[in-house]
């Protein structure tokens, strides 16, 4: 492999790699604004200046490919001066309203300004201001903060496949906006906020909810479809504030769709059922876990109810259910459900050119691997039905005398049920899911279960016990 020197360190590289990537491998961070590994290179922010031996002027590291024997300095006096100059230009018009900016704490402009800028501001001119257009329900625009890196324009054009952001006019008058001030059309709009290096494009959903540095971060996987995009749940005090995609070049690259990004909301919905409940005259009656478990045991002990399991459950949960049925209800039917009209991984496929898949549950592949048969119709007829799901699988029409549900349900879903034991959502449990490519990925608990929800495995254990002795909440 060819080698080059970066700040005195010898680094190997593959042909065609730019200096930002090579330097990163050598442990040298080069500051960037317009460069993004998932987008084309434009070299227009001029922040990534480096000094290359035998080249008369400073070079932009993002657009300079490493060559054999290249000697690069990223920290010389010249480079420091160049970067400080760039920072000064970029801050000429920036309002520096960090105290009320959602991006503060995770802002490239803030970090690079702190790291490479000058502590002294020479400019005394008036800063330009804009009137902002409404960009739809996902993104809040603030053009005053923009540094024209054009990442958003390139994201729309190259990744989302819709050229909806444009740069109108030039120089000091430039305006990064949508065509004719239209609202954003793409289903991937949340990424605009992730890639924006300033607070120009922020999430409306997250607006003024929490400072970025207060958030705890848990690495997990999205349960929105069979793609299994890697993501981070950002939470504090057992409340989820937002989800952001994590880089995984084999699965989702750097992106995620809005459906997955905002999917966490159903776990915090005020209508989510978080206590054991039984249908009573004129609505629902809250009962204790003991009564719930005993009630179910009475109904199904020694019987062969039909088990419907959502393909949104984890491998561990599905395995436990199978073991439980073999032990307690040998011969009972078990079928998985998830997306109406989609019963096998063969029918699953890409919903668009980017990430989204047809299967709206995360573990269809896993359920199939465990040998669970699919529910072929959208309606089911049986005597007693036990439904177990994590809230993402779309419920079929159930035509039965008694319907017992375990899992995550909103009040709106519950009309078909006679009894509900609340279970854990994807953000409240650990587990394994298998995506459409067959890659096994781990869900990780980010927040404690809400209310009196219990894990499915615990419910099964209680059902198996002779006596339903229910301990304290997890």
């Amino acid at each position: 492999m060819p080698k080059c020197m970066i700040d005195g360190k010898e680094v190997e590289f593959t042909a065609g790699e730019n200096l930002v990537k090579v330097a990163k491998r050598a442990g040298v961070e080069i500051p960037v604004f317009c460069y993004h590994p998932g987008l084309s290179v434009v070299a227009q922010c001029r922040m990534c200046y480096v000094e290359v031996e035998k080249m008369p002027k400073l070079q932009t590291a993002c657009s300079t490919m490493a060559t054999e024997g290249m000697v690069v300095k990223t920290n010389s006096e010249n480079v420091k001066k160049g970067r400080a100059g760039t920072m000064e230009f970029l801050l000429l018009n920036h309002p520096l309203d960090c105290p009320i900016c959602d991006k503060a704490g995770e802002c490239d402009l803030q970090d690079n300004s702190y790291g490479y800028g000058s502590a002294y501001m020479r400019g005394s001119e008036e800063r330009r201001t804009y009137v902002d257009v409404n960009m739809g329900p996902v993104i809040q625009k603030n053009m005053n903060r923009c540094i024209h890196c054009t990442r958003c324009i390139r994201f729309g054009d190259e990744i989302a496949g819709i050229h909806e952001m444009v740069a109108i006019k030039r120089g000091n008058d430039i305006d990064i906006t949508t065509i004719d001030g239209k609202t954003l059309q793409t289903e991937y709009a949340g990424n605009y906020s992730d890639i924006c290096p300033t607070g120009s494009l922020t999430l409306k959903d997250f607006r003024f909810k929490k400072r970025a540095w207060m958030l705890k971060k848990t690495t997990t996987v999205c349960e929105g479809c069979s793609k299994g995009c890697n993501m981070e749940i950002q939470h504090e005090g057992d409340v989820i504030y937002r989800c952001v995609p994590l880089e995984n070049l084999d699965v989702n690259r750097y992106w995620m769709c809005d459906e997955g990004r905002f999917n966490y909301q159903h776990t915090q919905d005020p209508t989510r059922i978080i206590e054991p409940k039984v249908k009573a005259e004129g609505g629902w009656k809250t009962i204790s876990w003991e009564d719930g478990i005993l009630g179910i045991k009475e109904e199904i002990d020694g019987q062969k109810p039909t088990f419907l399991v959502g393909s949104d459950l984890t491998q561990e949960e599905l395995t436990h259910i199978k073991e439980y049925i073999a032990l307690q209800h040998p011969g009972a039917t078990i079928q998985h459900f998830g997306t109406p009209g989609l019963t096998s991984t063969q029918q699953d496929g890409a919903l668009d050119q980017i990430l989204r898949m047809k299967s709206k549950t995360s573990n269809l592949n896993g359920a199939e691997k465990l040998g669970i048969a699919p529910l072929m119709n959208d309606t089911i007829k049986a005597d007693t039905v036990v439904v177990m799901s994590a809230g993402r699988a779309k419920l079929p029409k159930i035509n039965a005398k008694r319907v017992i549900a375990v899992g995550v349900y909103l009040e709106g879903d519950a009309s078909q049920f006679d009894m509900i034991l609340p279970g854990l959502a994807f953000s409240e449990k650990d587990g394994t899911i298998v995506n459409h490519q067959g890659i096994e990925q781990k869900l990780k608990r980010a927040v404690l279960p809400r209310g009196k929800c219990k894990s499915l495995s615990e419910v099964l254990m209680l059902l198996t016990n002779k006596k339903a002795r229910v301990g304290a909440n997890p």
Partner: protein
Amino acid sequence: MAKNLSEKFYTVMKKLEPRYPSKKALILPALHQAQEECGWLPAEVMEEIGEYIGVHPAQIREVASFYTMYNLKPVGKNHLRICTNVACCLRGSDELMGFAEKKLGIKCGETTADGLFTLSEEECLGACTTAPAMMANDDYVESLDVNSLNDYIEKIKQGVK
């Protein structure tokens, strides 16, 4: 295909196409040609150009708004662009602009009610040796002062030019 642009536009484009390495390079000449035909560049025209060249209309608009010599609003019969860059500024272009605004009764960037004049500011015209300079439609008017600018406007008004 032709909706807003004439057959002539498309013949000119066909002739120009082999000159450039890619069809995308036709954006600037196409905009010039379209502006010559329509006087300015309405959104539908830019959309049609985008369709013809095979790039998104948004890109056409980005290009058109980048250059000051493409008109994104209708202009008067005579478009006066006074250069206000360094050389012309030092030689009194501010004074000229102020005079023209007063004389025509409009602000920079506006068009007179009779549609005869549009006044705008221009970046460097490359005529620094004969500053201050002005571009009137496709003609250069150089070494201006208040008197000669007054004469020039009067001549247009009387229909001499």
